[in-house]
């Protein structure tokens, strides 16, 4: 290791580079782009080489059944623990897990697909007031203010944040299923529901949803956020 460092990247073989990359991802604390990693590795290394090395490293992790993998998140790479190990990690960190109410998720989804979007437009889609939900999403920094629309009243525009990509493990917004794919899913579900007896697609779609959505997801959003307790600019994220 010390040898590799003193020689610079020129003398590093793929094995040594993988080792450095692993260390960088461990220490970075946030997703790091292939470009940045290439720069850190030095001279000869190109971003595409970094991508190949990371793919190889990730394949190694998979092969050795490690507890984490390399994920592409928010335009960069990050080490992340395997979702199936979540119960253990939750026991390790007894803090309340991230909670998102159904209202919060729906509002996020609308913003993600229609950004930048005004509050009035959001409310038109959902058919309800979204003030409290929006405030909560802003506080959690899943949503950011993306300026004003230059119309009378200059309403504020909302967009999803980099943090949104990080939390949802998306490499970019393009990672989201397209609305056409969403409609496809809806159609499949409707078809499956119609032909209940012979429905083969249904279990595949429904099962992971049931598994992965913790009970508290659909609870009253007031548990997450109490608009009445909002004291001016005191961030009202409550600890539950």
């Amino acid at each position, binding site marked *: 290791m010390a040898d590799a460092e003193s020689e610079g990247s020129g003398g590093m073989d793929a094995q040594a580079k993988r080792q450095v990359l692993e260390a960088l*991802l*461990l*220490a*970075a*604390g946030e997703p790091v782009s292939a470009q940045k990693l290439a720069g850190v590795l030095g001279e000869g290394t190109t971003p595409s080489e970094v991508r190949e090395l990371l793919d190889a490293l990730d394949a190694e992790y998979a092969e050795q059944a490690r507890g984490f993998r390399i*994920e592409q998140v928010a335009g960069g790479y*990050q*080490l*992340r*623990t395997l*979702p199936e190990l979540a119960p253990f*990690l939750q026991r390790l*960190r007894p803090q309340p*897990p*991230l909670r998102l*109410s*159904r209202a919060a*998720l*729906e509002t*996020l*989804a*609308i913003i*993600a*697909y229609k950004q930048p979007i005004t509050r009035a437009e959001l409310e038109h*889609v*959902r*058919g309800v*007031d979204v003030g409290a939900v929006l405030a909560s999403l802003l*506080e959690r*920094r899943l949503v*950011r*203010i993306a300026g004003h629309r230059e119309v009378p009243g*200059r309403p*504020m525009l909302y967009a999803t*944040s*980099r943090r949104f990509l990080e939390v*949802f493990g*998306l490499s970019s917004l393009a990672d989201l*299923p397209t609305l056409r794919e*969403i409609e496809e*899913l*809806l159609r499949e579900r409707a078809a499956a529901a119609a032909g209940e007896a012979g429905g083969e697609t249904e279990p595949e779609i*429904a099962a*992971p*949803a*049931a598994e*992965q*959505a913790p*009970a508290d*997801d*659909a*609870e*009253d959003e*007031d548990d997450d956020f109490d608009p009445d307790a909002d004291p*001016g*600019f*005191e*961030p*009202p*994220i409550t600890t539950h």
Partner: protein
Amino acid sequence: MSSESPATGAGQAVPFEPLAEGGAACSIRLPVFDGPLDLLLHLIREDELDITDLPIAQVARQYLEYLELMRELHLDVAAEYLVMAATLAWIKSRMLLPPTGEEGEEEGADPRAELVARLLEYQRFQEAAAELAQRPLLGRETWAPPGVAPPPVPESEREIEVSLLALLEAFRRAMRQAKTSGHAHEVVTEAVTVRERMVAVIDALEASEVVEFESLLRTPDGGWASRAVLVATFLAILELARISALRIYQSVGAHGAPEGPIRLRRAAEGDPRARFEAAG
């Protein structure tokens, strides 16, 4: 909530507990449906109705029955539900009338069309939300290494924490210059909140660990921000300093006196947003 994804059909999930006599005394909080559109979609799903050819009379009846139930349960029926009830009644009446072609309306336009379009759109986003909810979420299903602490401030840079007075002075200077920047006076009511500016400051600090105080008071084109933004930004910075999400520095000159621009630095213990969120 055991067998369903969070974004679809919360409706079935919450059973109605009939109230005991005198039930008005205990207030129950059951936002069973997330608004009138959600309720309508639930009714449609339950009866496997065709959204594009909505049997409006049937849906309107069930909708009203549901509102009645909510009232009996002493649930607050939000205004939005009543507006939708009126809309349904209107559509129903229009369906009964022969098309008149009055008021320049399109011949044969389906009075349900707008509602159907809204329902379809909302349904799409409910599905999109369900898809989002299935992803392994950071902090719920997956975790990432927190990273190493940022390196200490290099000795050569020798910084001291800025006193409140120095900060106030810098702010006053900005306010004075902003006032005399010679633009024609333009009355714009600007809805700017301290919270918004806190988010903006944190965003800036996330993009770069050190940010010049003054740069936060300027617009992207280099001019001074409006007075409302200046004040809100200043309060936001103070608040963030109070909750230790950032620290405020200035370089030390040759004689030990502070000099040069005032800089904001992300709090050392990692993520400013962690502090921001924890402060609540």
